[in-house]
């Protein structure tokens, strides 16, 4: 009996990790994404302000900075753990109960892991590291 009680009280570490990633991804998306969309998606293309990605030389030098690489990894990868959870439950709410299943979880959270890997690879291979 005592053994059963001890097992029931074990913290759910898997839930802890996924909820942590969900919350962190949500706050990173909330604080960082709008300004990128506004500056790089609207003001830059409309030539209202100069933006670093408008010219190859400024963009490639910017992407070579290790702090920028780390920042972009967090900016792009972290929100996908939030999106994976939201989109999975959006499907459940819209009448797709299959989105609750283990294969669906593997697809959505696995997708976030894959995007993290691809982002890591793109950031490492696109621009050589430069500290200047």
């Amino acid at each position, binding site marked *: 009996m005592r053994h059963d009680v001890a097992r029931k009280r074990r913290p759910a570490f898997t839930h802890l990790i996924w909820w942590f990633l969900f919350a962190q991804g949500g706050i990173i998306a909330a604080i960082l994404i709008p300004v990128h*969309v506004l500056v790089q998606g609207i003001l830059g293309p409309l030539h209202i302000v100069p933006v670093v990605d408008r*010219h190859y030389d400024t963009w490639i030098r910017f992407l070579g900075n290790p702090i920028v690489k780390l920042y972009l990894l967090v900016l792009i990868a972290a929100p996908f753990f939030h999106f994976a959870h939201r989109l999975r439950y959006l499907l459940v*709410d819209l009448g797709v109960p299959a989105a609750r299943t283990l294969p669906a979880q593997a697809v959505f959270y696995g997708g976030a892991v894959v995007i993290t890997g691809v982002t890591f690879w793109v950031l490492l291979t696109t621009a050589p590291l430069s500290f200047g």
Partner: protein
Amino acid sequence: METVTSDVVKEPPGSAEAASAGSAPRVYKPEMPLGWWLRQRHYFLYIVREFTALPLALWLLWLLFEIQRASTGPKGYYPPESAAFVVFSVIVLGFALYHSYTFLSLAGVIINIKLLDKPIPSRVIVLSQFAAWFVASVVIAAVLIGFAR
């Protein structure tokens, strides 16, 4: 938070026998019509909040593609210019602002900090989140514009 529909309640043990005996137990089967989220403004806004993930994900994938395109070299690189892209970004910005507003407002409910044995009012916590958003936005905009030529 997300769970509006729920699983069909499992039939209690022995229900098959009871059904065959002619007194079928009443099993609760909640069924949500397809357009349930259009019935009330709150349901609609809830679904919009959850949906914000999709346009934001698409925009971040575009950003990743934009970074990857820099590997093509100076001759192959051209910045995004099309009106379609600007329209796409305007739509995404609407969803992004809605995500920020709803998510940062939640902080007042989730975060519970005590200072000198007194809980910090949720309004103060929410305001600090919005202040952090504002400061981060100004800094990022300054960097994105400052490193341009």
